[in-house]
């Protein structure tokens, strides 16, 4: 066989139909077949009907004068004046009016800490020190009694600072707890496994409201006379324990997905159980469950609105306080709710975008 077969090399050619770009996208996604064309027309029609109406109410016929009488004039749309008039009450709740610069500064400090923790370049041991110092400062400013600041008891704390503080702290405390519980549920030691399973099943079996009621009303009944724990701490502990159970199950899902070979390879290299968990298993497991964890974080952020029922007036509660007590402005609650909706949305959307960024960073090691 001295003769070799000849073949013609075929150059790569462009695809005959364009599939990328704006027009091809519209054609394939909105008018791909008759069902999708009909749906596009119906949805388009509804948007054309309702969006102008909403804009007319919210923008063109709206008034921004903070005068309740101006809002009662016939034909006036949204009354944004209510926000102008009440925004400090809505945002800071029952915190003493003249001292509201304190929650402002403290909350900005906390947000700065959160943003720093989300920045990859700053991830180091110093972050922990920064948090401890930051939280000490936070509570000093909020509670007062030092540096000439008057004492503001925790039941006067409220509004957005309370929402942010409850969400941030419960996430910070719940996450490590959830990791431990998730590992515990997979432990070879029956006592630890059983304990963690019971904890998760118990907590998942009750609504958050009942946990909050127990934390604020029932728990003090079981304390020895004279011993009191601040209601804020009790509620914070309740939310933390509640959130940790859900997070633990999300994390456990990630742990299940790590192939056994990873643990075996780690063991064959002489790494201990904890080294294997922290260096090999958890980094991969957590990377896999980022979307699920962020789900938990976002829902936790919104669940903090339930603390209103135990008389801690966070953002939704302080809106009620601000408007219910004033007959002039009470009719314009809807505008108030739109206002805090925008605040909640801004925070949740930021969290959601951050989680997408984290996913992107993590997927870099998986690129082929």
């Amino acid at each position, binding site marked *: 066989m001295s003769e070799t077969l000849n073949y013609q090399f075929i150059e790569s050619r462009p695809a005959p139909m364009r599939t990328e770009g704006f027009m091809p996208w519209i054609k394939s996604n909105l008018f791909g077949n008759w069902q999708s064309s009909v749906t596009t027309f119906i949805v388009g029609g509804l948007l054309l009907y309702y969006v102008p109406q909403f804009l007319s109410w919210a923008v063109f016929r709206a008034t921004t004068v903070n005068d309740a009488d101006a809002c009662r004039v016939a034909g006036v749309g949204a009354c944004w004046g209510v926000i102008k008039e009440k925004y400090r009450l809505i945002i800071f709740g029952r915190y003493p009016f003249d001292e509201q610069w304190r929650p402002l500064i403290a909350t900005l400090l906390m947000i700065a800490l959160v943003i720093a923790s989300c920045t990859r370049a700053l991830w180091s041991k110093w972050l922990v020190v920064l948090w401890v110092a930051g939280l000490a400062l936070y509570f000093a400013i909020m509670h007062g009694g030092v540096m000439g600041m008057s004492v503001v008891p925790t039941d006067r704390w409220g509004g957005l600072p309370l929402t942010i503080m409850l969400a941030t702290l419960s996430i910070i405390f719940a996450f490590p707890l959830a990791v431990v519980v998730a590992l515990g549920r997979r432990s070879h030691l029956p006592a630890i496994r059983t304990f963690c399973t019971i904890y998760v099943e118990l907590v998942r079996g009750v609504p958050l409201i009942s946990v909050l009621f127990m934390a604020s009303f029932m728990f003090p009944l079981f304390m020895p006379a004279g011993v009191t724990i601040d209601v804020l701490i009790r509620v914070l502990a309740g939310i933390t324990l509640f959130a940790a159970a859900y997070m633990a199950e999300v994390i456990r899902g990630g742990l299940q997905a790590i192939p056994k070979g990873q643990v*075996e*390879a*780690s*063991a*064959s*290299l002489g*790494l201990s159980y904890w080294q294997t968990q922290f260096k090999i298993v958890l980094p991969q497991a957590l990377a896999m469950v980022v979307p699920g964890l962020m789900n938990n974080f976002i829902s936790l952020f919104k669940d903090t609105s339930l603390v209103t029922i135990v008389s801690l007036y966070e953002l939704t509660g302080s809106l009620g306080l601000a408007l219910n007590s004033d007959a002039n402005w009470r009719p314009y609650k809807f505008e108030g709710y739109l206002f805090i909706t925008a605040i909640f949305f801004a925070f949740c959307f930021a969290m959601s975008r951050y989680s997408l960024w984290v996913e992107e960073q993590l997927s870099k090691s998986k*690129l082929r």
Partner: protein
Amino acid sequence: MSEPIIKFDKVNKWYGNSFHVLRDIDLSVAKGERIVVCGPSGSGKSTLIRCINRLEEHQQGHLTVDGVELTDDVKAIDEIRKNVGMVFQQFNLFPHLTVLENLTLSPMFVGNMPKKEAEEKAMVQLNRVRIAEQAGKYPLQLSGGQQQRVAIARALCLTPKIMLFDEPTSALDPEMVSEVLDVMVELAKQGITMICVTHEMGFAKAVADRVIFMDQGQIIEQNKPDAFFNHPQTDRAKDFLGKILGH
């Protein structure tokens, strides 16, 4: 002959209550000896070598590795694992770490080696398996053959006395088998004790001092490679060799 580096003495193992996977295994491996283990699937080959670094526990008999008997003593297991490197069929590289980090992990956290020294040593091993230029990449960016060579380099980073290979080429595309076998042949020439579960008969003929044939949890036959492949003693081995060489 000096004291064997690995000694199985009537070792038995069961999976669950009824599956008797290792049956009365007696085996002595001399220092520097190169052994190929073969046999049909499910015959206990992998379990046998996984007992050596305690990825599997035996339930009866005595197993001594490098002078230390394997028991529930965690310290002893850690000590043995430092001296035994293992290469897996599915590579089992850590996908979230770069190639270099895969190699330095154990020296740094088990051997308490400074980072710089660990990286230098890792580069020596990567050069040895001819893949130094990939040090900064992540495992999944490499081909199967490259990944398996990284896995070999990772196992070598602890400077083990014994290397275990569990079907190292079975998960590879045919084109990549030879690059891994070449590295293994080179390693075999350097005097390290090797136990290799494989069906690569060419490799066995080229480097093995002894071939062990297993079936149904027992060591059925052991011999020098030439003698084993050309004159198998048992019908079971003849049948097996007929199937894998018969095409």
